[in-house]
């Protein structure tokens, strides 16, 4: 990416923020640095009414910085409530009172299903990953799923997952409807592009290319065939106002850790 003015992570923060509205009621899980920066940026700009339950616990928190743990009490500063029981969060998410969550994994397939459990055979993994936490749950019913990945390459974007930890659009098409499940992933923001999903097949579709990234680069970095319709526009570059805010909201650059 063109050096100097802004970083790839800052483009990603702005792209994710663009998916959030004044009505969004979002919460987060572990190690979610770019999403948290995006929630705070959206709230400071176009979505002042956005509600963020920090670490799924600190409702409407206004932390001074982002810590190494995104479920840490350091995030809860200024909160109006601490939702201290999983019964709170799962119930509010189950009735779409909390409606938005961001997911990341080590593998994504064409339908936005996510693996964060193992690389290689399940019984004898080459790499053991942390596991899905609440991904296998929220992926099934959260109203708005947003995916992110800082490693857009053919090891990450694969035709078949080694383990389906989090349900995206399943096998594609109307699979979620057949399971009786609402929601489904809306976008996947990567370090190269913004992808969304074809409304019928539910396969990943190229929506925009980040500044300085070519179509050929994205195609070569994706291990399956993307839906490409016409000439993809560029992802908007962060504005000076957005950049100043991001750097103020995340002074210790935790966004660089993804």
């Amino acid at each position, binding site marked *: 990416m063109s050096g100097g003015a802004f970083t790839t992570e800052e483009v990603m923060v702005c792209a994710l923020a663009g998916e959030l509205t004044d009505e969004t009621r979002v919460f987060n899980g*572990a*190690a979610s*640095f770019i999403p948290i920066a995006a929630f705070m940026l959206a709230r400071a700009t176009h979505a002042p009414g956005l509600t963020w339950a920090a670490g799924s*616990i600190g409702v409407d928190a206004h932390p001074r910085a982002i*810590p*190494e*743990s*995104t*479920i*840490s*009490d*350091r995030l809860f500063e200024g909160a109006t409530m*601490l939702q*201290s*029981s*999983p*019964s709170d969060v*799962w119930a509010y998410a189950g009735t779409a009172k909390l409606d938005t969550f961001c997911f990341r994994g080590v593998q994504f397939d064409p339908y936005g299903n996510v693996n964060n*459990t*193992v690389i290689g055979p*399940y019984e*004898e*993994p*080459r*790499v*053991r*990953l*942390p*596991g*899905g*936490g*609440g*991904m*296998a*749950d929220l*992926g*099934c*019913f959260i109203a708005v799923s947003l995916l992110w990945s800082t490693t857009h390459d053919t090891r990450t974007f694969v035709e078949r997952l080694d*383990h*389906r*930890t*989090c*349900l995206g659009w*399943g096998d594609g098409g109307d*699979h*979620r409807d057949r*399971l*009786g*499940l609402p929601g489904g992933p809306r976008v996947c923001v990567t370090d190269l592009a913004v992808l969304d999903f074809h409304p019928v097949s539910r396969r990943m579709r190229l929506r925009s290319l980040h500044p300085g990234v070519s179509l050929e680069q994205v195609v070569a970095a994706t291990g399956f065939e993307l839906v490409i319709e016409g000439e993809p526009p560029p992802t908007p570059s962060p504005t000076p106002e957005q950049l100043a805010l991001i750097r103020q909201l995340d002074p210790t650059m*935790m966004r660089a*850790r993804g």
Partner: protein
Amino acid sequence: MAGKLVALDEASDLVPDGASVAMGGLMMTGAPLGFCRELIKAGRRDLDLIVMSGGMNVDWLVAAGCVRRLLTAIVSFEGFGLAPNFRRAAEAGAIAIEDWSELTMLCALRARFAGVPFMPTRAGLGTDVPAHLPERMWEMTDERSGRPFVACAPLAPEFAVVHVHEADELGNARVLPKLTWIDGELVKAAERTIVTAERIVRTETFREAPERTSFPAYAVDHVVHAPRGAWPVAMPPDYDYDGEFHRRYSRAAADPAEFRRLFEDEVAPFPFGPPEWMR
């Protein structure tokens, strides 16, 4: 009611080899690490360890060889990286891992205290989670709606171990400022509960503010005084997670000799020698 106080260095006697032990805490907050150290010092082995969202607690017990089977949804040091011994033990096949999700585990605990043969949920549908845990959960179709669900069988840990700020010798316990998270469900579901506490206080302290009590004495079997008993994770507002320790631990894990030194000096001697992946 007799006093339930047990000395920290005798607390591991409460848990036999092979027991199923569920531990509270949420990632880098509120986990009973002091109790984990006692289990290691006592050389407990073949434990079925239940940790919904863990990090250092799982990594210590796995490194020390105390764990036979791990039931978990996530083990991570978050911004400090992957939990190195959890990862290597899994890759070496040294422990059995049950890959739960948070809500299926919660449903299994609820099935236990609801006294029902399963708790249905939408969670896990369409994922690989249920197929790998056929004894724990299965897909079913509701006859009335025709819709599929995941049925979660009851999960009844023999022991719940939770860390709190204050407890009395009767077993009343409270977490301030009430970040109990999964701990509340573990205490309800477990056969016996061990509370480790930053401070032992008088029962009057609970009577003065009963609305702040997290766990009632009747549900708590043993109380252990464990100051800084969550270190190196956080026990807010008393202390933060020890980022410097997490960083050094992760760095040391790249070098077996360095890791052995750090673990034996700052955690506990290895009861069965260092793990095979650290030799």
